[in-house]
């Protein structure tokens, strides 16, 4: 098992592509996306109300080496600043196989 960092980002689905581009730009190619997520944050509640998709969120989870965290965060900052969202970083162990 390898010690790594697990990053978790929640952002509007329409902006999820920017997050993925930012991650890729620092060399992170592994990620998992959960669509159809709803939530509440600084920008109010975002129900998935079925008519306008404008409120839908996505959750992006990515595990990568701790050395990439700073670069990733730096690349993500402008997107988060502009479009809002949540970004968490935690420790985890990667089961190698």
């Amino acid at each position, binding site marked *: 098992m390898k010690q790594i960092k697990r990053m978790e980002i929640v952002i*509007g689905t*329409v*902006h999820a592509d920017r997050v993925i581009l930012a991650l890729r730009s620092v060399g992170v190619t592994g990620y998992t996306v959960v669509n*159809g997520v709803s939530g509440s944050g*600084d*920008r*109010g*509640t*975002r*129900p*998935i*109300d*079925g*008519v*306008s*998709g*404008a*409120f*839908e969120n996505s959750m992006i989870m990515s595990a990568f080496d701790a050395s990439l965290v700073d670069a990733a965060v730096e690349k993500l900052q*402008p997107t988060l*600043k*502009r*479009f*809002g969202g949540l970004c968490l970083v935690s420790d985890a162990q990667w089961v190698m196989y």
Partner: protein
Amino acid sequence: MVYIDMDVSLLLDNLRTPAILFFGLGVFAAIVKSDLALPQPIPKFLSVYLLMAIGLHGGVELMNSDIDTSVVLILLAAVVLSAVTPIWSFFVLRLKLDVPNAAAMAATYGSISAVTFITANNFLDSLNNPDPAYTPGGYMVAAMALMESPAIVAGVLLARYFATPAKDDASPQALPQEDRGKIDWGELMREAFFNGAVIVLVGSLLIGIAIDKKGWESIQPFVYTPFKGVLCLFLLDMGLVAARRLSDLRRCGPSLIAFAILSAPLHALLGIGVAWLLGVGQGDALLLAVLAGSASYIAVPAAMRLAVPEANPGLYVTMSLAVTFPFNITVGIPLYLAIIEALWA
């Protein structure tokens, strides 16, 4: 007196159509806190279906109607209406809202609601009026298709041109200094013209024009015959969604609600005036009124979240969906028709 009588009977006619009754059922279910829901992506699927169906039918009708100058003038009027209404709306809204929110709301109200348009069509149909002036032309679908994009462009330009740090915005950081006034035209055009809703509507319209009679007959049992029934199901969901948003109205404030209710008949009157000047029939006039008076809750919000993310969708979607839409489909449509009948008489 006569007008009021007429209006009430039209109103009752409208309220008794199945589609409006299902809207009411949805509202009722939301108010009594029922767990009824049509989860995503069903509503999305239904809305693609409705846009496809209305586009195809419009295209086929367009091929069967004479295209004369008056048609061209109607289309032009539609474009102008959707480009201009956002501008005055923006300045009125600026009294209460910061630039991004005022611009997004202005775009929302300049654009149109396809379901309101469909409901108005449905209503005209249910009147069973033999006068051909009550049957709108297929070009009205083209008019609708032309009214989404100009409003989006106008909204984004207003947001960029008047960009200042947001004031009512909940986010701690407003539009970054370097973004002000800067316009990514490629992205803007994509959001205005290649928006999912716009593509399906315009594409289906063009396909409706391209196919022959045999092609239309082969798909009609799916895109035309069951149309009004599907509309009922969609309006059931719209009722649920609109009423569930009513609780957000408190946070919006009375002046915004006043705007949402008043701008509808005001813009509709503008549409009626233009229709009157162009000398079109009552059916076309009603549809133009409804296009001008309705507000978007699918295409424009999707574009605004990308292009003007500083604006709060909790404002513009709520206003359009929970106030203007119900107003138009219940009271607005028969009201506009009563006005038209009085003027055209």
